[in-house]
């Protein structure tokens, strides 16, 4: 909280001191105050699937309310009903004790309810300023850009983080986009802000910055926050009240300071469970790292805009070793993964797998056992319109036993394909457990599980993984981490690119830090220090720029 006491005067209007009294710049209190919200008996079906079943909850005005639940529990669906993005089949919402019908997001906006979605809702082809104005909605027919720009600059000056108004959104890093989403809502002076996993693309420091500011606003009585998250740390640090959903039904609610993390976790999964993940993932101490599996030499590649994204990049991963690549998103990680998976052509440099040049062809992948979990798996590793079963067979649909026939197989056997998919769905806990659904209808976490199931079912020798637990609940995170460690212990080489430093520290044998397309630091897991890695991740000037005020 201390950080808000050193804001310039202009900022104070937005915040209060610790007692919750307002310290308005010229003694005025803001005109609009936080609102309360109640959901009563909300139900929603998607076809056969009951995503929400008679859910009621109460969010007090000025509170910081956290919503927890496993992947696919219905959290996003609930809040989308609330803001009018979906129509609930049953139930209604009370705002400040009065019933309102919210037919579409516009209605919610008029009531002062704003939402930051799990997926970005920015128009990448438009500028920061245009995105902000469009969100405001009450635009005159002809815009007075001069006046609007002044207004926007004044607003930006009051915020703890700033973005360039004229910048095109496509050029922003993921973390900056997330900040813009939140700025957008603050610009609209919301009284109730709903956040769907707002911190998944932020570094821990950025997350604290954003949540700390919102927390300050709830203390000032200006804002009510309803936040969906998978991170217990954020719940305990910022939340007042927590509500848990389980498979579409409310599983409990309580004040954060009187609910332990174990209790929350128990409510989420419905059984007693150990949250403290044992650090059993480490390699057996006597195991020697094997031969070099993946070698990258002097790799250069460009991003979509044609500017250099990876420069003179080099690394080695040995068999039985997990190498973690840390870094703030937008420093070339995405391009690196794309080059390794054959989605992007390198400008120069070599990629060797088992000492042989590697071009990521299907034959080479099979020959060397190279498998992967790219980020945004729905886009990068799935055919969204195909069923879960078909997606799970993308690696082996043309091989026995899934298909039969001359040499490689030209006749796919659906029975085999479905049987295999059902096994994997069972083994990896993909939900809903119906492999015939189109994969695009699964929640984000379940898509991730389905893809990981497919990849790990293969004879993996080299695994390339990007943000494997992005948006996953703690139980799924646990499972996936265990499976990665098992694969490594079984002799696979693993390259783990992640924005989550905790994950890297927990799993990797060696950590590299990537900044502006090069490796700037390397350290073994034993001697790794968070603070040092954090400093290298932040680079030199990039971070300072964002921490204005």
């Amino acid at each position: 909280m201390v950080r808000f006491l050193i804001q310039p005067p202009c900022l104070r209007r937005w915040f209060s001191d610790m007692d919750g009294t307002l310290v308005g710049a010229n003694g005025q209190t803001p005109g609009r105050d936080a609102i309360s919200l109640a959901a009563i008996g909300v139900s929603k079906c998607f076809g056969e699937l009951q995503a929400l079943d008679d859910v009621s909850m109460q969010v007090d005005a000025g509170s910081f309310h956290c919503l927890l639940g496993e992947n696919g529990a219905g959290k996003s669906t609930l809040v989308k009903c609330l803001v009018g993005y979906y129509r609930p089949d049953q139930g209604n919402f009370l705002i400040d004790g009065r019933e309102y019908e919210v037919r579409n997001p516009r209605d919610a906006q008029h009531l002062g309810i704003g939402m930051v979605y799990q997926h970005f809702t920015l128009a990448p082809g438009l500028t920061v300023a245009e995105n902000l104005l469009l969100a405001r909605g009450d635009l005159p027919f002809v815009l007075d850009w001069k006046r609007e720009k002044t207004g926007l600059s004044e607003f930006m000056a009051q915020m703890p983080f700033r973005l360039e108004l004229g910048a095109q959104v496509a050029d922003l890093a993921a973390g900056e986009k997330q900040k813009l989403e939140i700025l957008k809502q603050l610009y609209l002076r919301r009284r109730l802000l709903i956040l769907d996993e707002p911190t998944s693309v932020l570094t821990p420091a950025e997350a604290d910055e954003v949540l700390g500011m919102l927390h300050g606003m709830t203390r000032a009585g200006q804002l009510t926050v309803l936040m969906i998250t998978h991170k217990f740390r954020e719940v305990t640090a910022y939340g007042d009240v927590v509500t848990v959903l389980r498979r579409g039904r409310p599983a409990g609610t309580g004040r954060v300071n009187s609910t332990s993390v174990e209790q929350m976790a128990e409510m989420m999964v419905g059984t007693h469970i150990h949250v403290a993940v044992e650090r059993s993932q480490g390699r057996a101490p006597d195991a020697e790292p094997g031969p070099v599996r993946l070698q990258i030499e002097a790799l250069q590649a460009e991003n979509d805009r044609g500017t250099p994204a990876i420069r003179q990049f080099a690394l080695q991963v040995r068999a039985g070793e997990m190498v973690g690549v840390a870094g703030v998103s937008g420093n070339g990680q995405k391009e690196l993964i794309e080059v390794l998976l054959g989605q992007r052509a390198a400008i120069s440099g070599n990629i060797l797998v088992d000492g042989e040049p590697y071009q990521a062809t299907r034959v080479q992948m099979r020959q060397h056992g190279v498998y992967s979990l790219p980020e945004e798996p729905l886009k990068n590793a799935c055919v969204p319109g195909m069923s879960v079963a078909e997606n799970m067979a993308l690696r082996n649909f043309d091989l026995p036993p899934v298909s039969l026939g001359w040499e490689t197989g030209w006749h796919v056997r659906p029975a085999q394909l479905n049987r295999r998919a059902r096994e994997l769905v069972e083994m990896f806990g993909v939900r809903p457990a119906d492999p015939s659904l189109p994969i695009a209808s699964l929640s984000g976490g379940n898509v991730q599980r389905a893809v990981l199931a497919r990849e790990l079912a293969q004879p993996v020798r080299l695994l390339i993984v990007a943000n494997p637990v992005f948006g996953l609940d703690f139980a799924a995170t646990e499972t996936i981490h265990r499976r990665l460690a098992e694969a490594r212990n079984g002799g696979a080489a693993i390259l783990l690119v992640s924005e989550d430093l905790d994950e890297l520290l927990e799993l990797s044998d060696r950590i590299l830090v990537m900044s502006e397309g090069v490796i700037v630091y390397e350290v073994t897991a034993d001697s790794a220090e968070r603070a040092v890695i954090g400093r290298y991740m932040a680079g030199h000037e990039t971070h300072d720029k964002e921490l204005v005020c």
Partner: protein
Amino acid sequence: MSDASGGIAVGSLLLALLGGAMRVSTPFLFVSLGECITEKSGRINLGLEGTLVFGAMSGYGVAYLTGSPWLGILAAGGSGLLLGVMHGLLCSLPRVNDIAVGIAMMLFGTGLAFFLGKPLIQPVAPTLPSLVLGGWSSNTQIQEALRINVLLPIGIVLAFALRWAFVHTRWGLALRLVGDNAAAARALGYPVIPVRIAATAVGGFLAGIGGAFLSLYYPGSWNEGLSSGQGLMAVALVIFARWDPVRCALAALLFGAAGALGPALQSQGMTSGYYLFNAAPYVLTLILMSMSWSSGRSLAGAPGELSLVNR
């Protein structure tokens, strides 16, 4: 080989090219501006070729019946608008692909125009007036080259107006938002489908006018061979112009010049081989398209919702 001393006078060739460019480019200009609006909303309307032909027919018919070429223009725009609405509505049905609908609409538009236009091949409709800008010169060639049609300046002004409107008006911003990220537009409460239908309708209106130019100014009659694929080439042109209306206008002039190359050479006395140059616009289309797409990079400036963009 009129000139025994050999060669073709470069000056008069350029003049002929300029005049031809301004004539030939007008339909390109209108169709591409229309397509630009439609594509900004996130949809492609390949049916504009059909709209163009249908606009040419209906414009000619109405001009003939009423005696006013301006009413003809209006009728052409109106019928284009209807075809646009039809495309827009069809594409709004679930699981319908805009490119497939566009191809169907192209065949529908041309087919219907040929069918309804049969009785219009003989009669002569009044043509659009032209502006004589070359009155200061006594050179008939200059006079001829600078005799421009009224639609050309209207189109150029429209191009600048559109560029301005995309940035400075509420409708412009909303249109770009819908074309850039439909989910975001929906989340902000903008009506995605109505905006797209409206954009396709306006696009059809402009394409219809482009068609009326063919039948009411140059060549200035109705027949089934009137269009030579301008409607389709305009789609390529919009991509080349990176969805900027003013660049659309420049590209239209370039295409116009390419289209005028063959006739200009012919008018300069070249008697053989000039028809090779008639292929210039098509060759130009191919060259520009292969230049626009460089592998591995997304198309800068492309509306994110277009089915040809993968972002």
